């Protein structure tokens, strides 16, 4: 008892040591002035949530917009929170409002705290799994010590300023070990149900991808339990039947099902719309292939044996401990060991990715668009516990061996062994920590340098912001990743990203697999007036060396930032939509790009985007897409390189249309048009990304809008007359319904438990 207490104290002491060491290593993260990576996006989400909060608190918007809103900052807007994490952003922004601490400082502090406390989460989860204090400490240390060459894993390269800045992954990772361990304990030992549900909920709220990866291991717990049970029966089949018939097996299965059901219910408001409305989410070809497909067997094998999955830039200590540990897990007949072993191999296979398995892997729901390379997170996650268990068991075996082998001299041998072990530990610590210290040292230097540059640019940039915020603007163009925009910066942050981060709607943000328009605004032509019209670009921020076209007039200059104004644009366009292109969402990329190169946008010809199985009978021209290149039009199947099925100028409007007014509302836009004569295919197009949650009223009557090229909202107006169009993004009714269910279910669960306890 005394020995255990001492071990506990020492372990906690060392754990605190790791936390303090982390705090020292990453202290520069507290002083970040401007992010340069994914955290720009994350920060913008917090800022967006802050805007919604202010609307909610002033009674101008429903609280539901915190769960589901149209974010206009990038790529012609997108219903991002309908698909993406939103609660952490809502909480962070609320904390900022309540505390009065500015968002940047709060964002930095929270990230920092999560970063340095991550080993604590691993430590607690290891204890929940039932590991000893020493093993838990090793798990915590391993979680801190893993390092890769930026492979998006659980290591610091994923989170730091000089790395990828994946704060949402960091937040998710804080709950991932806890979700895994509590779920394990509930399924195996019927403990911690509430904690399991809560941690899974928090995990999914912070990072749905990690939740997805972690949760697919839960059924493996069941198989691990079965594989360690004793069975009776002569043949293999009889033994299997007896295993499944056993009370313990059935009870385990019931608990697994119950946990899965509860978690599914509390998260239903996220996942049901996510899958139901999946076709309105982009599958971006601008994203690297490896994100979707991962790296394949050969590359993974090379990384694994070279140590790149755990030990980049040092001896592959953790890598080989993991591999030996994995095999060791199967040499023990214990459920936890088996579970970790099976999970390890499963995650490794998934990390290998789509290349060896082809479309078979897409049988798993959600896989076809999942960034499979992220399985490195789950792989490293379980490896941490494997390393801990393996190390502790090996040491225990060595000690036992010494005791048997040395008999009377065992104590002396143990002491010698202990000294030797300490020396090895010190050496290992040096080897392991060296690249970590080097990486964070460079991070510190680079942050300081970037801050200096930012402070130099800040004054002018703030003037740009202030000017654009007060101007009646559409969207702002400030370069893009593929041209001068990459190097036109505020500090080290590309200005097109900084402006979006700070609430100015822009185009050509680094493409993401969210808004379908992200695919096309990269083709914005800064010399073509019609490009400005198509994307409603009213302002350009550019450096002096960029020659702007004549129609863009210089309005202001603040230091190196020159602001240009173009001829006034509109959020609405008037045109025709006589063609309909039908296909899968991934088929539209080339035909839409082709449309952008024709006179279609100039002439106001907006073909409809249709995902229906059957073509729209009300349209004149049906183009059925078979893939990115091949289509059938008027009975003939061709490739786009052979024939352009999009008419150029065939529908040029004879109708005159006068726009009477245009207004931006809190969650939408409205305008009034006067249409001079009847027009079968006429449409008013709102230059915002289409989503079924947009509610459109024409003269107060609800009408059904549909998507048109590139992926805008079209409203049919076919008769002569005056039309007042009001378009507003409204949180989805499905989401609202399931949110209610998500709230009620845990309440019922807690109440029933309380009542049961009271009885």
């Amino acid at each position, binding site marked *: 008892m005394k020995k255990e207490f001492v071990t506990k104290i020492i372990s906690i002491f060392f754990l605190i040591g790791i936390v303090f060491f982390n705090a020292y290593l990453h202290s520069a993260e507290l002083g970040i002035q401007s992010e340069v990576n994914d955290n720009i996006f994350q920060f913008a989400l917090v800022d967006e949530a802050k805007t919604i909060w202010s609307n909610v608190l002033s009674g101008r918007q429903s609280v539901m917009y915190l769960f589901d809103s149209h974010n206009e900052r990038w790529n012609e807007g997108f219903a991002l929170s309908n698909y993406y994490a939103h609660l952490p952003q809502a909480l962070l922004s609320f904390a900022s409002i309540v505390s009065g601490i500015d968002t940047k400082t709060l964002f930095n502090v929270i990230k920092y705290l999560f970063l340095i406390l991550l080993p604590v989460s691993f430590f607690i989860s290891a204890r929940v799994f039932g590991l000893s204090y020493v093993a838990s400490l090793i798990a915590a240390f391993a979680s801190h010590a893993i390092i890769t060459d930026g492979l998006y894993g659980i290591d610091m390269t994923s989170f730091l300023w000089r790395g990828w800045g994946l704060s949402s992954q960091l937040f998710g990772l804080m709950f991932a070990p806890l979700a895994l361990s509590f779920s394990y304990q509930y399924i195996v030992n019927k403990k911690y149900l509430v904690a399991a549900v809560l941690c899974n909920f928090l995990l999914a709220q912070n990072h749905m991808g990690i939740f997805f990866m972690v949760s697919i291991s839960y059924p493996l717990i069941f198989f691990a339990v079965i594989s360690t049970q004793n069975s009776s029966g002569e043949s293999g089949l009889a033994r299997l039947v007896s295993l499944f018939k056993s009370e313990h097996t059935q009870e385990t299965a019931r608990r697994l099902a119950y946990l899965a059901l509860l978690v599914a219910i509390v998260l239903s408001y996220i996942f049901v719309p996510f899958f139901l409305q999946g076709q309105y989410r982009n599958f971006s070809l601008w994203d690297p292939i490896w994100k979707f497909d991962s790296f394949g067997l050969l590359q993974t094998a090379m990384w694994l044996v070279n140590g790149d999955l755990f030990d980049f830039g040092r001896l592959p200590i953790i890598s080989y401990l993991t591999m030996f540990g994995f*095999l060791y897990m199967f040499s023990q007949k214990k459920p936890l060991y088996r579970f970790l072993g099976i999970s390890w191999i499963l995650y490794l296979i998934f990390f290998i990715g789509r290349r060896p398995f082809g479309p078979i892997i897409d049988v798993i729901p959600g896989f076809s668009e999942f960034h499979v390379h992220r399985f490195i997170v789950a792989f490293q996650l379980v490896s941490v516990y494997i390393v801990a268990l393996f190390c502790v068991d090996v040491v225990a075996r060595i000690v036992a061996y010494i005791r048997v082998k040395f008999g009377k001299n065992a104590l002396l041998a143990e002491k010698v062994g202990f000294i030797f072990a300490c020396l090895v530990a010190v050496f290992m610590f040096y080897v392991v920590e060296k690249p970590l210290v080097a990486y964070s040292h460079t991070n510190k230097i680079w942050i300081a340098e970037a801050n200096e540059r930012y402070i130099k640019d800040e004054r002018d940039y703030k003037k740009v912001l202030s000017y654009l915020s007060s101007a009646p603007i559409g969207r702002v163009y400030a370069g893009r990743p593929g041209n001068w925009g990459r190097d036109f910066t505020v500090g080290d942050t590309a200005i097109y990203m900084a402006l979006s981060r700070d609430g100015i709607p822009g185009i050509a943000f680094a493409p993401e697999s969210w808004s379908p328009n992200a695919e096309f605004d990269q083709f914005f032509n800064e010399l073509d007036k019609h490009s400005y019209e198509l994307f409603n670009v009213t302002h350009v921020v550019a450096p002096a060396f960029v020659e702007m076209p004549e129609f863009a007039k210089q309005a202001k200059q603040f230091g190196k930032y020159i602001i240009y104004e173009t001829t006034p644009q509109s959020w609405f366009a008037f045109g025709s939509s006589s063609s309909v292109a039908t296909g899968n969402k991934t088929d539209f990329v080339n035909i839409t790009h082709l449309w952008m190169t024709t006179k279609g946008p100039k002439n106001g010809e907006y073909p409809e985007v249709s995902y229906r199985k059957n073509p729209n009978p009300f349209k004149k021209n049906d183009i059925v897409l078979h893939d990115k290149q091949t289509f059938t039009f008027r009975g003939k199947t061709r490739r786009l390189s052979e024939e352009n099925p999009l008419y150029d100028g065939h529908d040029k409007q004879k109708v005159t249309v006068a726009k009477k007014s245009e207004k931006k509302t809190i969650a939408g836009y409205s305008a009034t048009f006067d249409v001079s004569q009847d027009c079968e295919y006429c449409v008013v197009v709102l230059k915002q990304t289409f989503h079924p949650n947009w509610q459109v009223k024409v003269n107060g009557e609800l009408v059904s809008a549909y998507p048109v090229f590139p992926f805008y909202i079209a409203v049919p107006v076919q008769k002569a007359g005056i039309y007042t169009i009001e378009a507003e993004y409204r949180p989805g009714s499905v989401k609202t319904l399931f949110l209610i269910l998500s709230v009620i279910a845990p309440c019922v669960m807690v109440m029933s438990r309380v009542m049961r306890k009271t009885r």
Partner: protein
Amino acid sequence: MKKNEGIIFILFIVLGLFIRLLFIPHTGFEADMAYWKGWGLAALDKGPIWLVNNTNYNYPPAFIYVLQAINFVYALIQSPYNTSYWANTNILYLLLVKAITIVADIGVTLLIAQFGAKCGKRRWGMLFAIVYLLSPVSIFDGSIWGQVDQFGLFFFLGAMYLLLLEKPFSASIVFTLSFLLKFQNIMFIPLFFVYMYKRYEIKGMARSLFVSLAVFVLITLPFIVGYEMDAVINLLIVNADWFPHMSLNAFNPWWLYSGLSGLDMSDKHLVFGITNAKQFGLYMFIILYAFATIIVFFSKKQDLLRRFILAQALVVFGFFHLLTESHERYLYHLMGLVPLVAFFQTQSRRILLTFVYYLLFILSFFLNMYIAFQFFYQSVWWPFDKSFSLLVSFFVSWANIVLFGAFVLIYSRKYIVRYALFLSVVIACVIGVIAVQNMPYIAKKPIALSTLKPIQQTQQYAKPVFDMTVNSHFGWKKWNRLSVNYFYYDKGIGSHANSAITYSVKGKFQTLKTDYGIDTEGGPEAEVLFIVEGDGKELFRSKPMGRFDMPKTAMLDIAGVDMLVLKIKTEKGKSINGAHADWLDPVLLR
């Protein structure tokens, strides 16, 4: 009596040794000898990592240490830095290299005899051992040719013997060494661990794997420490398509299929629908391997080792007969395995039958090796011309096939009947895979050319990449989707001028339809011509295509064409710089 037998046995060993010593001066397979010398010298001078990264070394990592040791001893006696080192008649080097095989031969002999004794068949053990030792196969392979197959066999048999002694960890160590010394032993890995699972359950199998991993780590330690394990992985896979031919003088069904010229025919020729010979062979091998695994998996413990030996013998046969790219020497493991099969026979008649089988096998196998050697070097007696050699190879091929069939019938017929259901499922699955692969062909749908393997490809910069751009050749950070002016394609061939990619289409298709253009990742100055040839005749030539041209389509009549060549060329005098050119969505239509 026993003592006399022992003395006679020893005398035979001495005789075997003497015969081998006589052949040491033979220059052997000169190319192999030159490789040993070059690799050994590089390994000793520059170390294993340099050897693997800078030469065409294609043997397993542990064999480097053997070559290092040979050269170390050589250097103690004589300098390897003068021209005599490279002479084919360098006796000292021949002695040192062949000494390994001689020692291995004696080791195999002793192991066979010992295995027989442990199985209660001491005399048969000695008899089989002596036959092995004095067989022309073992003498020719090691002492004349200078190959090291017996070296791999020695470790493999050592592992089997340790399994017989119920020493699983030692067996795992020796088995791991066996495939780290000689690649052919890789074919036994899955079976070995299935055996471990059946014999020692999951725990035992995991421990065995643990031990194997430990051996692997020890052997590859210089690579691990040097951060060069990718070189080891490359070594392990490099042989997969090293000689992409129907048969490397293995007189097997592919030798017959190729018209007795397996070395001159690519194994990417279509043999069934759009399935090429290599794939077809692999499917057949999978069926056989699955059958072998079933035999082991459903065994009871008391019968396990016998079945395991039998299964491994089947795998060796399958490896030789069913796969393309098989070498003439790939039957060598049967020299050790057939005697082991005999020792597990319970009736004397069956043992005698196996003995006769062994003799016939030796004869056939020897002829295969001997003629194959003679194809390259005339330093062995063979007064006949090439056509006669080919005629003999025809008969030897059939003899090899008949012996394979006979082995299946004699030793595994009952398992085919017993596990017919499982076997049917496996065969159905394989047929299913072939059917899925050929479905577009059967249904006369377009077939993506990039799903077929070219029989030849030449390119002046990097290598053709399928369904990605040519830059993707340089690793995942360079992976790119095929596109021309950002018009994307899912399928195609990312190539680079000047290139020629040849497909065997065997006159099975009427039309080739393809888009083409300079890839978005190409240089702004790039300009190329796209040319398609059928059986040497130009079928299509594009206009010069530049980086900013939109993709174009070509539709060509290829009826009756056997060899289809896709060429990308620059016009005379133009640079190939940045000429990243794509064949986009090329499809074959019936």
